[in-house]
């Protein structure tokens, strides 16, 4: 039987539909953790980098990538983990940043803190803790509307 290899553009598009398990409004491609896809013979190699070294979502993401590609008829998949260069929030796409903010999570900024409250847009915000509900988030509070919110911290 002759198998046709899916185009890499299609593969990227399929992966762009795989949600992050912790923050389902953004995809793993938006997050910038899919570093490469390449055919090696009849095997599709997908290279993924973890956000934080102990992030429990990493194992779930690998399973979801495999499931998504199998659903498209690819049955020979090799997942490769790459830790260097280390993941940085600079790899988060612009679309991803906008989706985070709309969801109520302030996107990362080089300045080290959110520009404004993702709920009421007021610029008056203060840090509660550099650690939050997942390794990638910090807890901030808006001093205008008084709501606490998550900030996707810069690394």
């Amino acid at each position, binding site marked *: 039987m002759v198998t046709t290899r899916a185009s890499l553009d299609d593969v990227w598009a399929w992966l762009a539909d795989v949600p992050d398990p912790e923050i389902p409004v953004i995809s793993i491609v938006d997050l910038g953790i899919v570093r490469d896809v390449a055919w090696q013979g009849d095997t599709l190699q997908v290279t993924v980098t973890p956000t934080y070294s102990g992030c429990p979502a990493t194992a779930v993401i690998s399973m979801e990538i495999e499931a998504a590609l199998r659903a498209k008829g690819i049955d020979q998949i090799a997942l490769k983990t790459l*830790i260097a260069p280390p993941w940085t929030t600079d790899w988060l796409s612009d679309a991803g940043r906008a989706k985070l903010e709309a969801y109520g999570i302030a996107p990362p900024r080089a300045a080290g803190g959110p520009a404004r409250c993702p709920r009421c847009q007021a610029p008056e915000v203060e840090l509660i*803790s550099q650690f939050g509900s997942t*390794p990638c988030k910090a807890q901030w509070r808006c001093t205008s509307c008084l709501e606490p919110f998550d900030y996707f911290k810069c*690394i």
Partner: protein
Amino acid sequence: MIEGLLRLGDNTLVLGQRLSAWCGHAPALEEDIALANIALDLIGQTQLWLGLAGQREGQGRDADRLAYHRDAWDFRNLLLVEQPNRDFGVTMMRQFLFDTWHLEVLKALTGHSDDDVSAIAQKAVKEVTYHRERSTDTIIALGDGTEESHNRMQSALDRLWPYVGEMFNPDDADLTDMAALRPVFDAHLLSTLDEATLTKPDSAFAHLGGKTGVRHTEHLGHMLATMQVLPRSYPDAKW
């Protein structure tokens, strides 16, 4: 090389296990979340360091095998990290002393000639930068806080001080020259203690024997007994 990797991985494993005992017990929700997150980062780094140690050893031992199937005398962690949690002040002082050293070690290792060592250090240094920022802020807040919190932080520093010297006691198995990191450690330590209104103890006495494995404190064995009981009792258990 393997000995140096075990030292790094055992430090993060033992401290990660210690910190995880705070989950559900910290004095405030934010502290609870922060300690659990830091424990998670340290356990993640353990998987990388011990994974590489097992790979280089080439005898089929993976990170789990090394973590769960070695005894106290095989561990190469610093005596500092195996010290019990005691109160929140002791836990945070231990963390501050470790983070201040750990960050400098990782910065040095980012330039290591071995690509795998450098890659793990580049990953970990980003996480540990946040760890040190937090423990530094906490030491200052509690040291320069109430009379009660100040006294507790000073007594925590006095209690843990004899375990600082081992971090800088150099030998050939370390992956970087630890003695060379002392000046930059001291600079951050002294400026933080100054702001925290705490006093550095005068003594230069150092307990040794953790990173060489020659003589751990009694606390490590008790901790390992709890940590290892499940995989030792049920060697094929999966979770």
